[in-house]
């Protein structure tokens, strides 16, 4: 779209929302500096920025949760507003779908969708028929079908996302904010969701999309507003923008998307699996990983990648087949045996499986290596513990206040470094990384892969599982494609185009 056409369309569509000179500080920490933002009817705009860049604060100001400092100006439909509260924001038609969706898991689809029509001063008695009617009307408008009487907790995550959208639509919104709506969706589900978003825009709803997945951002939006450190970097047309350029704008740093693949085919084999099968999860998996090799494993969600990792880490037993580590056949009764043998596993779910969030950074790091910090009489030696913790905090450059602080006080990138530190302390031969960059900033992602490459250089074998194809393409030596539990293809980044790999996986 050329500038001229863009100006025309913008002129043709009246602005719904305008914010001018928005600043906000919390107890002296400046979250936003003099930010302008505007969106027109039927426009799809993306708000991009790293964690802590001020995206959430800006959304919270627009929805009336926070009040901007000083002489900010908020215009809605050209009319200047005074103080904005959550109630008035809703009345004006501003709706947000937060990443956690905030649905009621035990209530039915219809009850969730029609929830706001039945609040407070609205009908005194809940009428089941009315719930269903509202829900059906909204679903019809989107041309979608959902079981109205099923509790939301029984739905797949993609369907829950649709329920959340329907709930917002039921209130007849003018502006809709979507916070990381695709974070847990597969490619096909994401495409379906993006179609829904386009439909909303055609109906004249202004949609503001917040996402870490830059490819999707550029696909769906007409315009990207980039925030960095609380200031607005600028508004950019999506047309002609590249992911790389966008990353640079968001981080202020340059990253080269460079294929790092090396040839490791003559290094000794670390892990070899032979016809490994676990019914209903994965089938006939025969793979090898060599010393110093980074092997990528990609495929759609539910392809059996995480299930395979669970077996290698001793959490489940295979039905058929075997695997060996360093030439020795392995059979694990629990993950303690796997750790002992030299296998580490960084789970996808860092919040509830990777780390014990409320406990200290120090305790999380030493948890897998308690044996090593035992002093006399089988008691933990504090000196040894402090030295070990200090060593890993330094070595991985983890930014911590005190090692005794709770892990939950750290940023996503630093938490992931703590996970790496705790496993590196076990001196593993094979490290399995399952979606290691979920919820991690673009800048911090690059740093994590730099660490991973360093480990491989030092001789560790790495299995990198990810459904983000660029991630495996640029950071591994070889890529395996898994579909429906089977390995269906092998690619070498130096000999394959990324588009070819993408096409194969999403076929």
């Amino acid at each position, binding site marked *: 779209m050329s500038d001229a056409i863009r100006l025309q369309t913008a002129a043709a569509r009246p602005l719904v929302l305008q914010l001018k000179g928005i600043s906000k500080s919390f107890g002296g920490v400046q979250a936003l500096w003099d930010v302008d933002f505007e969106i027109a009817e039927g426009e799809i705009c993306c708000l991009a920025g790293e964690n802590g860049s001020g995206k959430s604060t800006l959304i919270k100001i627009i929805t009336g949760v926070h009040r901007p400092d000083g002489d900010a100006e908020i215009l809605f439909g050209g009319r200047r507003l005074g103080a904005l509260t959550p109630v008035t924001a809703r009345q004006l038609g501003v709706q947000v779908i937060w990443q956690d969706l905030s649905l009621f898991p035990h209530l039915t689809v219809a009850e969730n969708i029609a929830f706001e029509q039945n609040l407070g001063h609205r009908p005194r008695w809940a009428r089941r028929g009315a719930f269903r009617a509202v829900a059906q009307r909204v679903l019809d408008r989107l041309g979608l079908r959902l079981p109205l009487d099923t509790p939301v907790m029984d739905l797949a995550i993609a369907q829950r996302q649709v329920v959340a959208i329907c709930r917002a639509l039921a209130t007849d919104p003018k502006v809709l904010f979507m916070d990381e709506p695709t974070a847990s969706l597969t490619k096909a589900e994401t495409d379906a969701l993006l179609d829904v978003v386009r439909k909303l825009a055609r109906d004249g709803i202004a949609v503001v999309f917040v996402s870490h997945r830059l490819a999707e951002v550029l696909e769906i939006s007409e315009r990207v507003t980039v925030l960095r450190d609380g200031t607005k970097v600028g508004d950019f047309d999506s047309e002609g923008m590249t992911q790389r350029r966008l990353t640079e704008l968001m981080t202020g740093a340059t990253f080269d998307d460079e294929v790092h693949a090396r040839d490791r085919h003559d290094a000794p084999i670390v892990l070899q699996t032979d016809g490994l099968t676990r019914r209903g999860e994965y089938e006939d998996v025969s793979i090898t990983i060599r010393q110093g090799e980074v092997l990528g494993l990609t495929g759609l969600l539910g392809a059996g990648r995480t299930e395979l990792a669970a077996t290698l880490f001793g959490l489940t037993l295979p039905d058929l087949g075997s695997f060996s580590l360093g030439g020795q056949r392995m059979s694990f009764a629990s993950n303690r045996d796997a750790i002992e043998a030299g296998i580490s596993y960084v789970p996808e779910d860092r919040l509830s499986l990777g780390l014990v969030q*409320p406990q200290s950074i120090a305790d999380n790091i030493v948890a897998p290596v308690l044996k090593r910090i035992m002093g006399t009489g089988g008691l933990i030696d504090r000196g040894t513990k402090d030295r070990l913790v200090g060593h890993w905090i330094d070595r991985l450059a983890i930014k911590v206040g005190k090692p005794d602080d709770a892990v939950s006080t750290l940023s996503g990138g630093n938490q992931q470094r703590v996970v790496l530190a705790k496993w590196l302390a076990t001196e593993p031969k094979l490290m399995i990384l399952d979606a290691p960059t979920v919820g991690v900033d673009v800048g911090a992602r690059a740093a994590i892969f730099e660490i991973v490459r360093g480990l491989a250089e030092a001789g560790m074998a790495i299995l990198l599982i990810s459904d983000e194809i660029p991630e495996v393409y640029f950071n591994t030596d070889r890529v395996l494609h898994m579909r429906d539990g089977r390995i269906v293809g092998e690619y070498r980044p130096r000999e394959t185009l990324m588009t070819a790999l993408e096409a194969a996986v999403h076929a």
Partner: protein
Amino acid sequence: MRDGWARLGRIFDGRQAEIVGLAAVLVLVLVAFGVTTPRFLTLGTFQSMAFQLPELGLLTLAMLIPILSGGLNLAVTFSANICALVLAWTLQTFGGPDAGVFAFALGVGLALLTGFVIGTVMGLIVAFLGAHPILVSLSMMIFLRGVGELITRGGDISGFPAFVTTLGHGTVAAIPVPLIIFVIVAFAVHIVLTRTRLGFATHMLGSNIEATRYSGINTKLSLTLVYSLSGVIAAVAGIIMLSRFNSVRIGHGEAYLLITVLACFLGGVDPFGGFGRTVSVVLALIILQAISSGLNLMGANQHLATGLWGAFLIAVMVVRWGLGRWRAARASAASASPRAPPKNQTTKETAR
């Protein structure tokens, strides 16, 4: 003066805040009773407190460890009395009042073993079947109560050799024997919780059992041992109660059950598990005992004392909430160092 406040602030912010706060409350309670009740600040008062504290104290320690693991052991009091019954049965088998020291030692051994078995059974069910600790320990409590009532026919079992009372009423260098035992157990619990693998695992799995398992910690074994240890400490409490009352009744100390939970919370233990310190819980116990003894000396009704415990615990919760807010406010004020606006190096490039 400002410096003094800042220092005070640091004390209340640090890791020792809980202990400093509880110690301050203890001093306040002692001074209050000291002023209002002349006979309060005497050796006799403290000795009687020292005799009464260990029963509740040991039961509370038996409750503390499961709470840290994110659970609860509602069977502590009945476990204690069943273990005491085992001791009483051993003594009676060996001649009742004429039983010797050997019989007593054997009985103590069997009582501790009984506590271990009761605890381990609960632990295995909690760890391997994933049943909720409240349900498991509640069922165990009702089971033990039924068995106990059946054996004792609801009455008292007595008739022990004279030396048993030394354990409950004797002193060593003016220090009551029960207190010595309590201090030894409390110290052991402190070491187990802070310096052993079991203690480490207890805190970690109290916060998140799955993540702890993923870290390679044997959570099932650890969780089982948590309840085994709780059962053994309950057995010690049972032995002390037997020697204090010179009798066993299945309902002894029943009223203590919920007080043990509250004493843990007063000592700053997180009700959802993962966090709590033995030292703070011991301080909390001393405070509760001082309130009870003080009111007793004033001639107040015992029920008034119980009521005041409740009121006191509510007050502590409110104060903790206030302190939490104060700390949060201080923390945000501390990070409020003025920051210059970022230099806008990128020119505001717009496509428009």
